[in-house]
C-alpha cells in the first residue's frame, strides 16, 4: 500500500537494517551470536488470554522466516529467512560504515558475508 505520508527524505539505513519492527519481527532487539549468526529478543510477550492466539500481535514473521499472518493479497509475504539474514547482517556493519558513500557499502554485493574486521570481531564478541 501507499500510506500517503510521503516525505522528501528517506528512511535511514538503521531504520531497516537494525530495526526488527521494520523487518516484521515485532518490537525487540537483535543480538549477535557469532560471526554470521544472529538472534532476536522480543520485547512483547504472547498474550495467551487473547482468543488462544499463540503469537505476538506485532509480529508478521518469526526468525525462521515462517509467516505468522495471512495477508490479503496473493504474492504478498513477509521476508523469508534468507532475506532476513541478509538485511540484518548489514545492520551490524552500520555503526562504522554509516551510509552508501562508505567504500565498504559501495562495494557491497547482495550476498556479501560481512568481513570479520577488527571492529566487527570485537562487536560480535569474537575478539576481546
Amino acid at each position: 500500500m501507499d500510506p500517503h505520508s510521503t516525505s522528501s527524505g528517506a528512511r535511514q539505513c538503521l531504520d531497516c537494517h537494525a530495526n526488527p519492527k521494520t523487518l516484521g519481527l515485532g518490537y525487540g532487539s537483535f543480538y549477535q551470536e557469532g560471526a554470521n549468526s544472529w538472534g532476536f529478543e522480543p520485547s512483547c510477550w504472547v498474550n495467551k488470554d487473547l482468543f488462544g492466539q499463540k503469537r505476538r500481535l506485532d509480529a508478521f514473521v518469526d526468525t525462521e522466516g515462517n509467516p505468522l499472518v495471512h495477508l490479503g493479497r496473493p504474492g504478498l509475504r513477509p521476508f523469508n529467512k534468507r532475506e532476513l539474514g541478509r538485511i540484518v547482517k548489514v545492520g551490524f556493519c552500520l555503526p562504522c560504515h554509516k551510509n552508501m558513500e562508505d567504500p565498504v557499502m559501495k562495494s557491497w554485493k547482495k550476498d556479501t558475508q560481512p568481513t570479520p574486521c577488527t571492529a566487527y570481531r570485537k562487536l560480535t564478541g569474537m575478539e576481546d
Partner: protein
Amino acid sequence: MCPLLSPLFLVVLLIFLTTTFHSALAAVSITTSKKATKVTKTLSGRIEMCLSCHHERPDKAHGRDVLGCSVCHLGNPLAGTPFEAHKGMILNPGDLRVAQKTCGQEGCHVEQVKDIKNTLMSTNRGIISTLRYYWGETDDNNHALTVEDLIKPDHPQSLALDYFRKLCGTCHLWLPRNSMPGFIAEKGGGCTACHNKKPKVAPGKKGERHPYITRDIPMENCVRCHNRSGRIGLSYQGLYESEGYGTPYEDGELSAQELPDGRFVQKIQPDIHYEKGLVCIDCHSQKELMGDGRQRAHFYQQVEVRCTTCHGGQQTLKKLLAYQESKKKFPMLNNLVAAPGGTIALKGKHDGKLHPLKPFSEAKCRNQQHENLSCQACHSPWVPQCYGCHVRYQRGEKQLDKLSLKETFGNWKEFRSYMRFESPVLGVLKDEKGHEASPEVVILVPG
C-alpha cells in the same frame, strides 16, 4: 386520573391539532393554487416554466439560463402547476440509478456515466472479494461480485457479505444521498458524491441554494470515505487517529480535534504533496478514478499514476506532455505544463500554482542493493498500524443493512487491541505473474 384525560393534556392536544391542520391546509393551498407565470426559453432552446418558481443558481456550466431545471431533474417543465410539474422529478440527478437519463444523457456525460459504474468506487469489488477471501469463503480475491449485485433483493447471503452490508456498505456510489443518519448522510449519491462542493455563487431571490457542481473535486469529498482501513485521507493531511480517549486533553476537556464520526485525531507530519498544496485529483486522474469502462478487482490495477510518472525526470515528462498536447487519447496526467526555464511542471488543479517535479536520485534509488525497493518503502516514514483487529458478531441483535436500508438480524462490532503510528513494516510482493525473480519490497500493514 389517567394523565391522558387531564385538562392540560387536552388543551395541548387541541392546540397541536389546530396548528397542524392549519399548516396542512397552507401546504395544500400552496401546492394546488400556485401557478407558473413565467415561461423561459433556455440557451439550449428548451421551454421551462420551472424557473417561474425556482430561483436557485447552479454553477455556470449548468446555469439556470443554460439548461433550466428539467434537463437534470426531469419532471414536466411545461405543466405550470407544482403538482404536475414535479411528477417523476429527481432530486439528485447524480444517483447512479437514474444517471443515464440525467448526467449521462446524449450530449452530456454519456461515456463517464457508463464508465463510473465499473469503477471500484461503485463496485467495491476489491473490498468484497478480499473480505470473502480473507474469511475463507472463496479461493481467490478476484471474484466479480459488486455492490450493484448485492443491492438486488434476495441476493444470497454469507457471513462476510453480512459484515460488508452492515459495516462497509456506506462507502460506495450506489448509496442514495441523505439515506443515512448523521455524518453518513453526505456520503454516496453517484456523481454528486464527488462533483459537489459548497455553493460559491449567490443564492436565489429567497435565499435558495443549489449544490455547486464542479470538476475541482474538494479533498473533503474524497476523505469523507477514504478515512478508514489504510486511513490514507487522514495520513495525507497529517492526521493520526489516536485512541478514543480524547487525548491530549485541552484545558481539562477532551481534545477538540475530532472527526465527524467521533474519532479523535492528532496533528503530525503530513505528506509532502499536501504541504506543497496538492490535492487528491492532482495525482489521481479522471480515468484512474472514473475508469475506462473496464471492471477491475483491485485499486492497484486501476492506479495509473506512479511516483516515477512525475519524478522520473524531464525526458519522461516531455513524452507525457507531448502526449497530453496531442489530445489523441486520454492522457495519464492532464495538468503538466511547460514552465519557465524549459522545464515541465505540474499545475495544481486546486491552487493553480506551478509545482516543480524533481527527479529521483539514480545513485540513491537505483543502486544494486536497493533496486527492488518501492518508493514508498523508503519515503513513507509512518503509517497507522492497527494491531489485534477483531470483530464481534451477535446473531440475535439487529443492525442496519446499509445496502437494503433495513434492520436485519446479525450485529457486528469492530475492535482493535491497539493502534500506533510507526515506521512501516516491509515485506515482499511477487510480480503480477507470480514470479519471485524480481520481487518488490513493499509496505505491509497489520489487519
